[in-house]
């Protein structure tokens, strides 16, 4: 999957929201790419665009989304529909709202499977459904099939969602905050499972999250987003040990941990800009301590500063970084 120069605006009654401002990245085969940023930075808009699921008031001004030889933005919708759900699956944040409360788990799974296995009868499909549930390490798949979603815990519901997402043997899974709604001990279980499944099935995963701890544990590479653009892209080790973009540095410094006890916490001055009237040039420039005139004129492109480490900044801080 490769996303190139994606520009998306939303037209609302209050004006135009300049949501995505030239987003570009690649998800490599078999890797977990983290898409990280704060609320409203365009993480979810990007993922929706990738599946052609943007609402009607969205306007795609430019960009290409290449996946297995198709440009998903140029294809007809019925062609996209063949890829969506089959080759690319999604896992959303709140498992309870992804399941229909009035149907049993088994019925919902079989409904989906009917699309992928049109020639099999109900009996065969039941068997496949149980296999898929067992794959997500749900105990006693048979009895879970006859339960309603509310009879399952959050962790079990998310496993069912994963079974649905994997039932078509996709090559890419987009996971939008998959564990945010879960308790930490359950989150740890689900994460370990996601890792095992990814390795076993050779999946590529695009993990959308604001949880930097999660990124460090699960991702191979990370794309940091700010106000509609990717500002830095590198492997996990580099992002956490040698962040280059002033925003990435600010973000990492703001994470609260016990090690910082007694110190005043660092934070990024100012506020996330309104995307109705985004700042010109680099959208981070009003908050950036390293701002130079060029930052206000033209948006910086991602530049490779060292092998496989891309930064969009005209004035990369020269002093070394460490987490205070």
């Amino acid at each position, binding site marked *: 999957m490769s996303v190139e120069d994606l520009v998306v605006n939303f037209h609302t009654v209050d004006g135009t929201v300049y949501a995505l401002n030239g987003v570009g990245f690649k998800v490599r085969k078999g890797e977990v790419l983290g898409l990280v940023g704060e609320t409203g930075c365009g993480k979810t808009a990007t993922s929706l665009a990738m599946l052609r699921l943007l609402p009607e008031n969205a306007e795609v001004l430019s960009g290409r989304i290449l996946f297995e030889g198709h440009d998903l933005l140029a294809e007809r919708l019925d062609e996209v529909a063949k890829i969506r759900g089959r080759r690319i699956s999604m896992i959303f944040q709140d498992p309870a709202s992804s399941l229909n409360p009035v149907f049993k788990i088994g019925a919902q799974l079989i409904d989906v499977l009917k699309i992928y296995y049109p020639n099999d009868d109900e009996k065969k499909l039941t068997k496949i459904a149980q296999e898929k549930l067992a794959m997500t390490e749900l105990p006693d798949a048979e009895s879970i099939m006859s339960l309603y979603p509310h009879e399952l815990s959050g962790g079990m519901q998310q496993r069912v969602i994963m079974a649905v997402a994997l039932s078509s043997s996709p090559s890419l899974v987009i996971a939008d905050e998959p564990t945010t709604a879960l*308790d930490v*001990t359950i989150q740890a279980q689900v994460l370990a499972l996601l890792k095992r499944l990814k390795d076993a099935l050779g999946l590529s995963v695009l993990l959308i999250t604001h949880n930097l*701890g999660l990124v460090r544990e699960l991702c191979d590479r990370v794309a940091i987003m700010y106000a509609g653009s990717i500002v830095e892209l590198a492997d996990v080790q580099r992002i956490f040990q040698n962040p280059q973009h002033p925003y990435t540095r600010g973000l990492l410094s703001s994470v609260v941990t016990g090690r910082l006890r007694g110190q005043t916490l660092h934070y990024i001055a100012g506020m996330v800009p309104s995307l109705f009237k985004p700042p010109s040039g680099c959208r981070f420039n009003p908050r950036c301590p390293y701002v130079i005139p060029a930052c206000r004129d033209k948006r910086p492109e991602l530049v490779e500063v060292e092998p496989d480490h891309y930064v969009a900044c005209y004035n990369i801080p020269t002093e070394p970084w460490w987490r205070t």
Partner: protein
Amino acid sequence: MTDTLVDIQNLKVYFPIRGGLIPRVAGYVKAVDDVTLNIDKGEVFGLVGESGSGKTTLARALLRLVEPNSGHILFDGVDLLKIGKGSLKHLRKDMQVVFQNPFLSLNPRMIVRNQIAEPLTAHTKMSEAEITQRASELLKLVGLSDEHLWKYSIELSGGQAQRVCIARALALSPKLVILDEPTSSLDVSVQAQILNLLEDLQKRLGLTYLLITHDLGVVEYIADRVAVMYLGKIAEVGTFSEIFQDPAHPYTEALLSAVPKVDPAPTDKARIILRGNIPSPASPPTGCRFHTRCQKYIGDICRDVEPNLTTLSATRKVACHLYKP
């Protein structure tokens, strides 16, 4: 000897489960089951646990927003469960709450000035002009300015709205501020600002905080003492360094291990992944409530006998059969 502000003794809060055609009590959810702990004046007391562990119910009982079934809550020496409505109103002045989502705690139809004025009009005889003056001072205290007095909450960012909630909570100079997930709905860099503010206010005004959260990073950063709850019971209580550097209860250990870390220490051990789900508080396991998931299960005693809180040091108690009294 430090002064105790809140002394909770053997507190039980049970919620009846009603069922059947002719509604009758079919059982109880034991949300808080025999909890004893104390909060000292001027300290930050962290209460951690997963959903359903009873931490919010405990705070609500402390405010008497739910009626406990038995036990005692001594607040500054007065037993909250024995006093009438009139004196309760007086005491409530001294305890204020800041909730998770500031936009749900603020009234979208009221300007900021009037929201901060509410506790002042309810509890004092200040004139309108005095109230405006006080509201302005409070906003300054939380890092906002007079221009925010006349705004509606939708005009504020999440961080600003939470600051207004904090200002309102401090309006009557309370003795205890209950912070229920105060930073959980905020973005990382805003979280840091709010925590800086909370810590600064606590030091400057000598406030006592009861901090309820599932964010262990926040607790480790700011709390002086910590209690870990599991299914309505205290699993372990101790100072922050005891809990975080040397957890005694297997649940505390697993909980700390489960959190994905931004800067892993080189000494980080292999992650402990607990089996199974959190049992329902309506039918908690027998014996030690954690035994169904415990990685250090030592035998029938865990299943059959409920462990009492055992004293490990002057500041630390743990409820686990691994430790003999």
